[in-house]
């Protein structure tokens, strides 16, 4: 699949935004330590203004970027029409619902209305909606049967994992900026989500195999054309230059390059940020967390790029690939 920059930016930016907001809500509900709730109401407002604001900006930027992918954006408002069947529609609906839910929560907190647990209830609702949005985004890809690298049970958890991991690091970075330290709950959230996501991603690479289109249990050109018992070879694609199909689906970065980039991605996203955070915490270097964020941003973008570049749609078989 051809990686579309607008979609890469959308998934990375919105992913980190929702991750940040999910942690904000989770900490509010379950771990007030990480929220510095002991602070005066004034600092609490600044705190929520900063974290919530940045989270919402990232989410919104991502959503706006995703509309750049549309060839006919004037009809984008219709995308909420098929909630019952379409994951893309569901994503749109939840993404939209999140705004009022989160803003209500922030407003309740801002004005200090919390005698009846209303704020906590609103936080819980916003949390559920944010999570649902992430699930829907993952399912848009996981539900596509013609792409075996996407149509599996790991696609969605990995997307959520990346969101929570980059979100927790972003949270830690902002906290570091504001209070000059990294509290234990944030540190633990980051380490846990990083390790879980790393394990899922390694499992994913093992599951999809080498990115060369060869290997066992693959759909072959014979399966695609119906001559499953014979050797089939494309003689003529029927067109002298590209088509929509070849432009959209036939993307070859080269198996060796993809394998190298996989390793780069693992180092950028997991190894370096993990080392920086642990080292920075032990030695006490505040800038380590900012550096970790830069690496993670690059790594996450690369991960999304790979997700597209390694995906081999079955329509490629009709265009001459021997297997996917």
């Amino acid at each position: 699949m051809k990686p579309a920059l607008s979609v890469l930016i959308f998934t990375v930016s919105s992913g980190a935004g929702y991750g940040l907001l999910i942690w904000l809500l989770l900490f509010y509900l379950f771990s007030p330590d990480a929220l510095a709730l002991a602070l005066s109401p004034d600092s609490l407002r600044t705190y929520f203004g900063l974290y919530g604001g940045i989270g919402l900006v990232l989410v919104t930027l991502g959503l706006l970027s995703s509309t750049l992918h549309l060839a006919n954006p004037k009809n984008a408002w219709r995308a909420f029409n098929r909630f019952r069947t379409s994951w893309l529609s569901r994503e749109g609906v939840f993404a939209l619902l999140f705004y009022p839910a989160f803003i209500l929560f922030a407003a309740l907190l801002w004005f200090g209305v919390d005698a009846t647990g209303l704020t906590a209830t609103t936080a819980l609702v916003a949390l559920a909606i944010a999570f649902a949005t992430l699930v829907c985004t993952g399912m848009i890809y996981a539900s596509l049967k013609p792409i075996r690298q996407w149509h599996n049970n790991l696609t969605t958890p990995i997307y959520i994992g990346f969101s929570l991991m980059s979100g927790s690091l972003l949270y830690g970075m902002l906290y570091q900026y504001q209070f000059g330290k990294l509290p234990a709950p944030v540190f633990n959230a980051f380490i846990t989500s990083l390790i879980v996501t790393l394990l899922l991603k390694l499992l994913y690479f093992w599951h999809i195999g080498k990115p060369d289109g060869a290997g066992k249990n693959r759909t072959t050109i014979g399966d695609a054309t119906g001559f499953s018992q014979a050797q089939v070879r494309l003689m003529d694609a029927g067109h002298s230059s590209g088509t929509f199909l070849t432009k959209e689906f036939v993307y070859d970065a080269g198996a060796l390059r993809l394998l190298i980039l996989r390793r780069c991605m693992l180092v950028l996203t997991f190894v370096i940020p993990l080392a920086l955070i642990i080292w920075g915490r032990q030695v006490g270097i505040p800038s380590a967390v900012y550096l970790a964020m830069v690496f993670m941003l690059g790594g996450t973008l690369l991960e999304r790029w790979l997700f597209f570049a390694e995906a081999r749609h079955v329509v490629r078989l009709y265009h001459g690939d021997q297997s996917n």
Partner: protein
Amino acid sequence: MKLGLAIDLDTCVGCHACATACKQWNTSGTIGPLTDQDPYGRDPIGTWLNRIRTYEVAGTPVAGIPVEGAPVSKTVHMPMSCMQCEEADCVTVCPTGASYKREEDGIVLVDQDKCMGCNLCAWACPYGARELDEEQGVMKKCTLCVDRIYDEALPEAERQPACVLSCPTSSRVFGDFDDPNSTVSKLTVERGGQGLMPELGYKPVNRYLPPRQHTAEAMDVQRSPMQKLAQWTNKLIQR
């Protein structure tokens, strides 16, 4: 009704008349125009609803040597357009409701006024049946010439998709797969017609009639009288 096409891979000669006729009819039809970019330039690219690819399907040689009586290698021309799937994922993934499947005849269509050009339906289609019109920004696909087949202004014989009418070898047959007595249903039974990639579960309606199993025709070679006698004896014994 379950309208669709039966396509004979034995007789298709890969002339692209169906694709050309399709483009000609549909560019001025209800979903038209089907735009081209750089049509007379170096790298022409454009929207087509029907594409023909040519494959070499190898016979069954043993250790590289063809076996007598076994099917020989064949050149197979495979025209592909929308399969009008019964379980059409292109319809369910569509967020706007632009893609829909008609209940009365099973034709999958795109409402050009509602499509936002997100490409998700094309991603969900394993057959490459959908193409985004770059200039118009909306998805185009085969309509089974829905603007021909019901047009009572046309003579009855012409109420068929343009690709079917144009096929010089009658390799494309249009009809109702729900009716067991229709030509397409009978052909499918008779010739063992199959849908492509049924394992994906889309239940494609279109059927491909596989090439007949021909063996290589012996050339009229000159044989010595002794060879002729041996051949005659062999035939006699075989009886």
